[in-house]
């Protein structure tokens, strides 16, 4: 009986460790997928690229929502965009992403947003760029 009980305990421990490893893998995958899309670095990079390539069209309207689970503080100054994420979970990286762009957007600053809109239009033969953001 003692031997069976020991084997039972070992089986339970092994099963728990296996479950722990499987659950960890799923959780880590979820976290990495989520944060690779929602990190400040990625959002700054995507936004600055959208802002630059908007200049390659005659007129365009780009809407970008990186995630609905987090929000960002955005600062645009001297053709440099800074995105600082606000995450509710402790394990998320809080580092801001800073990226340059090449088109003539005016300086702008907004807090706690996660939906971004980039508009380019031609007004009297001149390119006009607009950036706006809101929380969804």
């Amino acid at each position: 009986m003692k031997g069976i009980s020991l084997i039972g305990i070992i089986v339970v421990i092994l099963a728990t460790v296996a479950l722990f490893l499987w659950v960890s893998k799923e959780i880590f995958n979820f976290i990495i997928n989520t944060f690779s899309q929602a990190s400040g670095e990625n959002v700054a990079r995507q936004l600055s690229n959208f802002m630059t390539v908007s200049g390659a069209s005659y007129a365009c309207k780009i809407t970008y929502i990186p995630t609905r689970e987090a929000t960002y503080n955005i600062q645009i100054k001297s053709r440099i965009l800074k995105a600082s994420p606000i995450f509710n979970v402790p394990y998320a990286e809080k580092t801001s992403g800073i990226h340059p762009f090449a088109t003539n957007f005016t300086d702008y600053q907004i807090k706690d947003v996660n939906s971004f809109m980039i508009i380019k239009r031609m007004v009297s033969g001149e390119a006009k760029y607009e950036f706006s953001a809101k929380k969804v």
Partner: protein
Amino acid sequence: MNFRQKKCKGLTITLSAILEGLFFFAIIILIFWLLFSRLYEVHTMMGQVAIERQSINLANVLISSEKLAYEQNGKIYRGILDAEKLKIFTKNGEPTEVDIGIGYPNSLNVVLVMDMETCNPPCLVQGGDCKNSICDTWSAILKGPILIEGFSTIKFISCIGENIKLGRAIFVWYPQDWEKCVRNSLPSSLNLIFTRGAALSYGLPILIRYPNGDLHLGRIFVGVVSV
């Protein structure tokens, strides 16, 4: 040992097993909590050649820009550059600094437009390899906001000028000359953190429209050197 005692013993073992199991479960929860609240932080790192990507983006913006592209009846012809509008660039010479509202900040945005139908010896028949040909070129350094103190665009331009032979866009093919020129233009404190520049290696194909309506095959090369 009677029947009742045996029953109690079984109950004790079960209770103890449940308590052990709960204890073990609590330890796992504690490990998870410690891991995610204290020890674990997700850092994202993305691998890409940022400068090359910036060069490609900038070239795409330039070939669509109303400042350079050919326009007719309010329509902008993407990829067709107007020779008249290219007059803001320097023809066959040292590039000058130009502000057309396009260009990366804290960077040297070097643009060169080459008319490949004017090359001598002709290079279109060699598959567009114009390294050894002399062609008509228009070049400029696009002005973006410079927030770095002590950085001298003028020094860079004169250094690049030394590397350009008239009518020969040789500097496009030798980005190491750029690197040398950027290093000369930077204050010594910044030399160590200089980001390597990259030229859009083979340029984007374009057409150049002359006032008489002629269309020539050409290429636009864009180099971004970030400081």
